[in-house]
């Protein structure tokens, strides 16, 4: 008798959940994780392709001096200490090719440190 009540309860709960799918737990979209290494005077990788609207966690790791990575058009600037790592989450909201540069002066080739983001639909 007790088992029957429990079974009926479960059945009712399943039917209820089926009737209101919006109230059930949603599948979460986890951000894509990208690791970028900065060293004098390059980023690795030097090119990354992202999808517009897809959240991204960008981890910036330095293997020597302090560096930064700045995309002026995306309003994104992340800085990392010498030998350290840091991360930033963002969602690209426009399509195009965006060139980011090192934003912390790191020596004679500082101006050549660049990373290109290709944001596609």
């Amino acid at each position: 008798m007790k088992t029957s009540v429990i079974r009926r309860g479960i059945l009712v709960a399943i039917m209820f959940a089926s009737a209101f799918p919006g109230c059930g737990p949603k599948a979460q979209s986890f951000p894509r994780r990208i690791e970028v290494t900065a060293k004098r005077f390059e980023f690795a990788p030097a090119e990354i392709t992202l999808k517009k609207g897809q959240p991204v966690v960008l981890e910036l790791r330095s293997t020597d001096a302090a560096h930064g990575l700045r995309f002026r058009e995306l309003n994104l600037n992340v800085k990392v200490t010498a030998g350290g790592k840091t991360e930033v989450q963002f969602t690209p909201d426009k399509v195009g090719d965006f060139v980011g540069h090192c934003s912390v002066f790191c020596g004679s080739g500082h101006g050549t440190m660049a990373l290109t983001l290709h944001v596609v639909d």
Partner: protein
Amino acid sequence: MRYLLPLATAIVSLGMAGCKADPPGSLETRTMTFAKHRVFIRDKNQANPLPSNASTWADGKEAFSHYCAACHGLDGQNTGVPFADHISPPIPLLTSKDVQSYSDGQLKWILDNGISPSGMPGSKGILSDDELWSIIVYLRHLPPAGSQGTPEMYNR
């Protein structure tokens, strides 16, 4: 043959005198200023792609402090630079008419390529294009002379 030694001595003496970092005469200054503005410095019509606002100015100030301040001071007016008057030609005040009358494009050309034989080095590759253009915004609105103190390297 008997004139060879005096001639060689005279040439060497002239050469030695020519190496002295004396201030240039007014004719030399006027000639070089004309030549730089009208002939040598290019890209007169190139416009600055960055907006002239407080954010870009702050970027320019920071980039300027990393590299340019060693010779021009933090204020672009040689404050705290011990050798500014001992170079020939002397390091100009960046607020001067001579500098400010260059177009933005010409200033960018100077930052990219330098000016020979003034001692002004080119910065292409050392600073990014973005930083160089932001420096030009800073140059157009330099702070009052002395207001930024002495570059850190001369305070040690």
